[in-house]
């Protein structure tokens, strides 16, 4: 099936199995290895992407449903000023250790701030509640999101 969508601000088309997971299409067909597979069942959030500006676990999303959608991975986010703020905030807070969860955490941060530019600590916890990190214990990540929200005032 032919599927047309917008990927990281570019119109793209692919002819593939409509049930193939968006996760696999992004990694194998579009070579976006920033999108990680952790659990493959929606528990870990490592495969999170934005679809029409909402966070979605791409391991549960068949590519056939992508028709006409806007999909953004960290690779697309990189083109924005907001990404620079999130990246620096994660760096300054020491929020990155092994790094495997970080593309998903970055997407979760962006999704949260899009909806709620000044989140409380509880709201940050809720915002990243679908993203597992096995290194940091989350406190530094929560700090990072808080720093990003403060520094990015007016951007979200």
């Amino acid at each position, binding site marked *: *099936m032919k599927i047309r969508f917008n990927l990281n601000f570019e119109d793209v088309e692919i002819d593939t*199995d*409509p*049930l*193939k*997971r968006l*996760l*696999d299409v992004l990694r*194998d067909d579009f070579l976006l290895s920033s999108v990680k*597979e952790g659990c*493959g*069942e*929606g*528990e870990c*959030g490592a495969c*999170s992407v934005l*679809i029409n500006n*909402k*966070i*979605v*676990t791409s*391991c*549960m*999303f*068949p590519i*056939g*449903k992508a*028709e*006409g959608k806007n999909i953004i991975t960290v690779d697309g986010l990189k083109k924005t000023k907001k990404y620079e703020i999130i990246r620096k905030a994660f760096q300054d807070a020491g929020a990155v250790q092994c790094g495997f969860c970080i593309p998903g955490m970055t997407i*979760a941060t962006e*999704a*949260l701030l899009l909806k709620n530019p000044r989140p409380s600590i509880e709201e940050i916890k*809720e*915002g990243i*509640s*679908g*993203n597992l990190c096995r290194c940091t214990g989350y406190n530094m990540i929560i700090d990072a999101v808080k720093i990003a929200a403060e520094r990015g005032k007016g951007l979200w």
Partner: protein
Amino acid sequence: MVKAYRPTSLDYALDILDQEPLYILAGGTDLMVKKRRWSGLSPSFDKNVLFISDIEELNKIEENDKYIIIGSGATCAQISEDTNLPYYIRAVFTNMASPGIRNLATIGGNIGNSSPAGDSLPILYAMDADLVLASKNSYRIVPIIDFIIGPGKNIKKDNEIIKEIRIPKVNFNKIMIKKVGTRLSTALSKLSFAGLGVMENNKITDFRAAFGAVGPKIVRNIEAEKAVIVLINSNSINEDNIRNLYSADITPIDDQRSTAVYRKEVCLRLLIEFIRTLGEGK
């Protein structure tokens, strides 16, 4: 490789569904996991698939004088963020899964799955929700309590789509909603509870209690509810008679998430606590 259809109107979807049996895929959060294989391989569907998430008429949330009407395609996120809905309906959906799943998973999917642990079910049972099942050129209205007939089993026919959920409006003023899981996010329920009541002029006029994940279906006992109303209003309610009324209905199992003993005891204590708060306002 199976074929997929992606209609944008319900009529067209029902037309297709009338021709051949299909997997109906809305959010996909259960089906894509159930059918998954190793990474890089497409999930193994053995029938063609009907994507229904782009059918806008299924995604609406509306109300009229009598009913709240939730389209089967409304996502958990959509319901949880809809400020026109009663908070206790929204709260149930806010407590499900995680943000990334709530943006995909739909109320219709949760009902269609018919799992005894389906988190949306106790409140829908307690509120006497009806389902509208649409097929080509016809539809029928079925109470949710009759729709689900066992774990993962329901009476939906192959050519039917759950179109919407109709919830009768009642001004409940006594409410207790509880999900007991290992953690707040992404947890399947050990058990869940929905208690609703109406108190008018110091009398309880309506009382309902539904329990999830403690039997093959959601548990609701309408006879016991009537008895509870009489007992409360005659000031003769106590822990023992509550336990007597409900013990036989709550029949949980041991599994990896919890034990039968724990589930049953917590259910009864939640019920007792809810009934205690009903008595308090008298």
